[in-house]
């Protein structure tokens, strides 16, 4: 049996330590060890984006990240993005634009979109930046519109 290792990271703003297997994936750490089941396992191979979380602010496929590599770093899952009643601006527009149907892809899409907004940049890039997040339901147009809208609202709210 492999020895267990200790991984300490900032998870949704809170410093947490986990005793876990050396071959743990970040996805399993988040879901099984931390009990945060927002990030989903779709393909387990980096292709679908259902497992996307933010690692130091950048979207990553957590099924491909060795949990030990995240030691000392900052991880944000959809649970850390917003709460019922206090949603992230992109979560708000996903709802108002009908960008959520079955919801399986939504936690990954929400964190990827949040990272897009945090970086700023050109709305023309939105579809490309979301292309790693597959959705079987919405047909994408409403998801991209929701991100465009959230970005426009953010720009309008920003002090001139």
């Amino acid at each position, binding site marked *: 049996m492999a020895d267990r290792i200790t991984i300490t990271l900032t998870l949704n703003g809170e410093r947490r330590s986990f005793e876990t297997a050396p071959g743990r994936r970040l996805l399993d750490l988040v879901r099984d060890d931390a009990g945060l089941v927002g990030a989903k396992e779709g393909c387990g191979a980096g292709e679908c984006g259902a497992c996307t979380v933010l690692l130091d602010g950048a*979207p990553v496929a957590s099924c*491909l*990240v060795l949990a030990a590599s995240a030691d000392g770093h900052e991880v944000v899952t959809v649970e850390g993005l917003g709460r019922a009643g206090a949603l992230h601006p992109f979560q708000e527009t996903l709802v108002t634009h009908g960008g959520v149907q079955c919801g399986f892809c939504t936690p990954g899409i929400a964190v*990827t979109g949040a990272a897009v907004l945090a970086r700023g940049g050109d709305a023309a890039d939105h579809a490309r930046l979301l292309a790693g997040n597959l959705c079987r339901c919405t047909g994408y147009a409403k998801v991209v519109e929701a991100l465009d809208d959230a970005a426009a609202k953010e720009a309008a709210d920003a002090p001139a």
Partner: protein
Amino acid sequence: MDVPVQEVIRPATIAEALAALAEREDARPIAGGTDLMVQLRDGRRRAGRLVDLGRLGLAGIRRTRDAIEVGAATTMDAIAASAEIKRSFPALASAARQVGAWPIQCRATLGGNLANGSPAADTAPPLLIAEASVTIASAAGTRRLRVADLFLGPGRTALTPGELVTSVRLPLDEPAPGERVVERFTKVGPRREQVISVVSLAGRAVIRPDGTFALVRLAFGSVAPVPVRALTAERALAGRRPDAAARRDAARAVQDDIAPIDDVRAPARYRRIAAAVLLDRFLQEAARG
């Protein structure tokens, strides 16, 4: 599911990393994990010990007097966003922006793309036309190897166990006054994002004021067991203008540079045609500027 490894080491210095690799025969470096995690899970590669490269300070892009040095752990996202790379090596910036999709680009590293040894590695053709080299460190010392000599076959490289790629060096090559440079990377696949290239081409042309080539370099991915320079096609074009006759000769010559196979992603015949089409498009762009 956990990947089957017994231990993970997170060294803070290159010396510690090299010692951790030398200590166990079944030790293997891990950078972004975007290739290795799935390979470990599927049993296509094995490792008793993983040596994480994340703390070694190997990420970063810096310009020296006559080259740009890219740290092995630099991500595709950082390469694609770099003003320095976009200006001097636009094909590399473009290739980095076409590796997987954004969440892959935020983890995938240049060193991992090369060390994985895939004939489809998208950064390889741009590095071949830049005549780039890698710096390799091991417990025995360091050596420099041309990217052209790094790839040996599908999934096989000249790296020996215990060796680490620490950086990639791209020599700067400024055109003479009046010359213009056209450099492109294009890839063919079933969709734009998140696809392994069926054929890819990186081209660099330096064009004199009279319209003739001062230099033309071409390299392909996914059309041979390793990424390849198209030297026969380059010779067919040397000193000429990218007119219809030259383009026809190049399309014929390039067939000798490539040795594609049939696989799940495309038949060899398709790859031969697509390689000629990508080359022709590049030469037409070179003619237009």
